């Protein structure tokens, strides 16, 4: 079926100005004024930019390392976030400790910034556990694989925040494809209805596995929330400052009783959907190359290179030059990678007891029986054993 262009709205369609793509840092690293976002960037210093550069660099390394580890058979699978570093770092940098994050499977960069040990990610993606981190410690919910489901969890959490008169906010991450799911739309209905402090953070990376965003949405994704009564903003997702500012603004609205906000971060998945995917089957090299020119790290570097005055100082009082920034970021990435590799050697696969643990919070006699039978079964062999338990 061919499709008719929806660019010219048919009669009866209210003529709504398309939300601008908010951009603060151009791909060339120029700072552009943005009426809506500038107020949220007044505290930006070179040091802060250097910090964002470092975080993006570390996360890119984490991503690359894990992609390698998968190729080496250490991980079962990895969903690369290459290209989306600005979206993840910019948004996560805006969050407070008490804010609560509901991620999908691709927010491994966000997870890192929430304090998750990269080894936790490794354990998760090698299939040792579903719990790559402890949500109670990180205020980061378990990763969500069911597309869109977490958007409702964030809204429910935010309902609780509102009841508790908390100043925290909830944020839900999901992709462009997820916007087609009923759950994401219901999440907007509930969020608007209860006017709760939640941020919907959609990384429109242009693809849902092999499906282009145009199959999911005939208008910009950021056009949709308005009809639910939710303000939305479309930002350059490869611009870490724009993302930071938009997220700060949304969080501030949430904290001040302003209700939900939707952010569409327009970015691009540079890698495959997961290490099991072959993107050459569905998209052109040219498209990928065009996006490479909009690299989120490069533009921060370009910006810093052009603006560092020589008098800027890093946190330790050293001279903040572009070389120093690059070096510091690379060093941080090396450090993370080294720790990761070291830790890897010490990882132990879980034993069979983990099978039966935490299925129920309270005693369950039938499951205890199955566990006991399996213990007896395993006891016949030499290998793995299951301890005799009270239940």
């Amino acid at each position: 079926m061919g499709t008719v262009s929806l660019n010219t709205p048919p009669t009866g369609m209210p003529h709504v100005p398309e939300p601008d793509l908010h951009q603060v840092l151009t791909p060339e690293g120029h700072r552009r004024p943005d009426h809506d976002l500038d107020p949220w960037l007044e505290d930006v210093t070179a040091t802060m930019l250097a910090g964002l550069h470092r975080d993006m660099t570390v996360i890119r390394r984490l991503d690359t390392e894990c992609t390698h580890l998968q190729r080496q058979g250490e991980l079962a699978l990895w969903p690369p976030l290459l290209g989306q570093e600005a979206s993840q770092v910019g948004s996560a940098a805006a969050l407070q400790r008490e804010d609560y994050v509901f991620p999908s499977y691709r927010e491994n960069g966000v997870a890192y910034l929430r304090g998750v040990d990269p080894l936790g990610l490794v354990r998760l993606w090698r299939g040792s556990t579903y719990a790559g981190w402890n949500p109670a410690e990180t205020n980061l919910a378990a990763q969500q694989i069911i597309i869109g489901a977490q958007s409702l969890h964030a809204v429910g959490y935010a309902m609780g925040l509102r009841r508790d008169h908390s100043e925290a906010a909830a944020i839900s991450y999901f992709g462009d494809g997820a916007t087609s799911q009923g759950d994401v739309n219901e999440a907007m209905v509930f969020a608007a209805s209860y006017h709760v402090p939640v941020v919907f953070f959609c990384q429109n990376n242009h693809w849902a596995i092999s499906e282009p965003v145009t199959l999911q949405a005939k208008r910009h994704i950021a056009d949709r929330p308005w009809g639910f009564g939710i303000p939305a903003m479309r930002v350059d997702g490869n611009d870490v400052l724009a993302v930071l500012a938009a997220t700060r603004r949304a969080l501030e609205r949430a904290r001040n009783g302003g209700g939900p906000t939707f952010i569409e971060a327009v970015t691009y998945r540079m890698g495959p959907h997961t290490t099991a995917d072959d993107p050459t089957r569905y998209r052109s090299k040219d498209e990928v190359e065009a996006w490479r020119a909009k690299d989120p790290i490069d533009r921060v570097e370009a910006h810093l290179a052009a603006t560092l005055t020589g008098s800027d100082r890093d946190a330790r009082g050293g001279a903040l030059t572009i070389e120093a920034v690059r070096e510091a970021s690379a060093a941080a990435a090396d450090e993370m990678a080294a720790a990761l590799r070291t830790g890897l050697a010490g990882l132990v696969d879980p034993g069979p007891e983990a099978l039966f643990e935490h299925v129920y919070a309270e005693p369950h006699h039938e499951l205890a029986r199955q566990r006991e039978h399996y213990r007896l079964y395993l006891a016949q062999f030499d290998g793995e054993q299951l301890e005799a338990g009270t239940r």
Partner: protein
Amino acid sequence: MSAQETTFGKAITAGLRAALAEDEKVVLMGEDIGTLGGVFRITDGLMQEFGPDRVVDTPLAESGIMGTAVGLAYRGYRPVVEIQFDGFVYPSFDQIVSQVAKTYYRTRGAVPMPVTIRIPFGGGIGSPEHHSESPEAYFVHTAGLRVVSPSTPQEGYDLIRAAIASNDPVVYLEPKRRYHDRGPVDLSAPLRPMGPAAVVAEGTDVTLVAYGPLVKTCLQAADAAAADGISIDVIDLRSLSPVDYGLIEASVRRTGRLVIAHEASRTGGLGAEIAATVTERCFHWLEHAPVRVTGFDIPYPPAKLEHHHVPDLDRILDGVDRALGRPNSLDSIDPFAPPTPLAADGTERG
């Protein structure tokens, strides 16, 4: 013990009220449960009493309700979700199966899901389509959930409190056609566990297992059978998952015969599980194969036909007769006739 006479529905209301009063983290959510007090009035007055922050009318979207309940549980709340009718639970099935049931496991115990899912279920009230279903088998097959169903006002009160107090997610199935039944309820009863089944009529010839709406029918059957000199041990499961097999086994070891009754369709119903498990554990005591008296393998039929579908006293007694080898409806069928596998061309030789 200060039991007072009340209806089944009101007993559940009282249990909800007690839970709301005892723990401020308890929040009720659902369609029409606030101002209206629910289409069955089970939450009647609770919004007025505890405020719209505790008893929350939700938008019309079951997945939304269940998904936000998960989020509230993440925040430390104990949501009690009302699904308006059994047939409307399916839009939330994904959130139940993949989130409510699995989050505790997924987080290795870091995030409990003390979500109670109240579902008025079962038939017999002359309702339109989707208003009379018995979806319990879906939940019983889902690891991570507990499933209970009360059969009396007192159980209604006890089990709803226990379900809400449990740190596990609980599907609480309310036998809607018994809402107006009356019985004594002790509101000061201590919190009782959900697990144990109960022998609600003692007998020696056959064990009859039921839950929820059919317990009453089974008790009537036991009475009727007694007049015929047949003594039935009636067991009210209360907990459908897990099942208190010890109690059933003890009974079957005495009677040697088991009948299980439920309204849900037969194939893959809870009766199959109980028959299989009891056969495993009591094979040497069984004098007859466990007999199932259930709804047919059909969509719940239109109201004018439901009396055929929902097991009644006569069908249960026929099942009892089969278990006892007494004259029954299937006597004309020769159990020793050769089986008839389907022909390779799919035609049925039978």
